[in-house]
């Protein structure tokens, strides 16, 4: 079984000593994210997130399925996150590691269980047909902060995605193609984003958005998911070294501030993308004139 290369003793000591001198190896402040790059694909619902060297692509696809009998009025929404050996030699196909399980569980709790997506709007005919939405998360490059990057990618992709319109006549539903009818955006109720805090020196120092080498040195991790309205969607501290309860509460305050900043960036990117796609309304599209 391939294993993550362990960080050397020297490097470990170096990172720890630097932290005690209030320095991070990449020169960031303790509470700073790496520069976030967000680009959208040509298709709707593809978001490519780069957080420093970490790179995650999320893709949303839609299908029509029969809703489960116990949830007749809901659509289906799945988040599938798999580590591929492309990101890091330590990842293996078919054997989910602990990190992979944590990632998919946290995305599930942060986005699905907090009802970020209104699944009822995905229902076509109650009990018979519904849209089955699937978010695939691909980890392209791994340099720490996978949870944060994946969450941003999925949320951005969901907001970018447009589903085809549908016409229902009695028991018959017709899905209209993109050419026939303008596709419609999903109804997003709120935008949860994850901020992971890494603890060092028994909870004396905490870092936001640790990179891979910092992740290997840390004592413990706390992942807080919030939305910009100040609601906490999920907290996960699965173990590791203990922390002071006040520091834990402080995390939610810091997370809120970070989430507000991130939401603003994502919103800006979405608007810029929408402007790029907008050809200038119906009149511009119908016009026969073209530039020569």
């Amino acid at each position: 079984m391939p294993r993550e290369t362990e960080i050397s003793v020297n490097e470990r000591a170096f990172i720890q000593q630097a932290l005690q001198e209030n320095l991070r190896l990449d020169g960031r402040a303790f509470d700073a994210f790496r520069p976030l790059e967000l680009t959208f694909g040509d298709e709707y619902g593809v978001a490519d997130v780069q957080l420093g060297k970490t790179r995650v692509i999320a893709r949303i696809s839609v299908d029509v399925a029969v809703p489960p009998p116990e949830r007749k009025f809901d659509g289906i929404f799945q988040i599938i996150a798999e580590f591929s050996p492309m990101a890091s030699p330590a990842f293996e196909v078919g054997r989910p590691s602990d990190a992979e399980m944590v990632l998919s569980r946290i995305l599930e709790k942060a986005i699905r269980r907090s009802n970020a997506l209104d699944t009822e709007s995905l229902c076509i005919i109650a009990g018979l047909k519904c849209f089955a939405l699937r978010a695939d998360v691909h980890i392209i490059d791994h340099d720490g902060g996978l949870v944060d990057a994946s969450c941003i990618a999925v949320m951005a992709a969901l907001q970018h995605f447009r589903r085809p319109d549908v016409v229902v006549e009695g028991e018959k539903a017709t899905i209209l193609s993109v050419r026939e009818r303008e596709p419609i955006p999903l109804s997003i109720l709120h935008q949860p984003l994850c901020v992971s805090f890494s603890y060092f020196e028994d909870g004396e120092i905490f870092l936001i958005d640790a990179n891979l080498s910092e992740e290997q040195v840390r004592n413990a991790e706390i992942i807080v998911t919030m939305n910009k309205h100040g609601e906490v969607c999920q907290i996960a501290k699965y173990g590791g070294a203990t922390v002071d309860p006040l520091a834990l509460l402080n995390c939610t305050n810091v997370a809120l501030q970070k989430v507000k900043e991130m939401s603003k960036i994502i919103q800006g990117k979405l608007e810029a993308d929408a402007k790029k796609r907008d050809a200038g309304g119906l009149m511009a599209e119908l016009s026969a004139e073209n530039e020569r």
Partner: protein
Amino acid sequence: MPLDTSTYSLALLRLDGRRWNELRRLHAQISVQAAASGSSYLEMGNTKILCTVSGPSEARRGAGGGGAGSSEGNLEVDVSFAGFSGVERRKRRQDKRTTDLSHTLTSSLTPLLHLHLYPHSTITLTLSILSQDGSLLAACINSATLALIDAGVPMTDYLTAVTCASSPSTSDEEAGDPLLDVNSAEEQELPFLTLGTVGREGRVGVCVMESRVRGEGVEGMVAVGIEGCARVREIVDGVVRGYGKRFA
């Protein structure tokens, strides 16, 4: 099925007649199974868990994480639900919830155990959930702590856990009252978190919240949770000391 918890604000009594900071009856025993290296039986209200520890034994070859050839022992946790434990009888495979539960237990207990004393070996924790009525993770943590102490595995301190919910708020400005130790009816209706603390100073070892709550509510929940953990610690400590007296 929606449940009416709105009556709380009238009488300040919960569905089962408790006040906001009351624990359910916590009953625990250790050394319940003679064959195991250590075992415990714990009831938190109607949540009942039997936990056994086996080992330290020789690590299986090719076991994940530490295992054979590593200088530290490793802890394996195996959680199983009895078919009759819930309201509905359900065939339970290894689903995501079970793996999540065992992952949380492994990662929260590992730093407390002095595993460097057991190189090349594995300690296996087996938890059988006999009856579920909310606070499952908290009950699992408490029973695992007891069983590990019974097995005589050296550890730094007790890890004790409780759940804490936030009652529906009456006004938009304030968050609702925190409620200690939720049962399954409250768990379905209210946002709650599971908090585990280590030692007397109340440092947080585990904190898991899975539901959406107003940011202001978290503070109250953590504060009440820490106090609850201290009370659970006293009870658990009493059980261990009571057992020790039998040999005195």
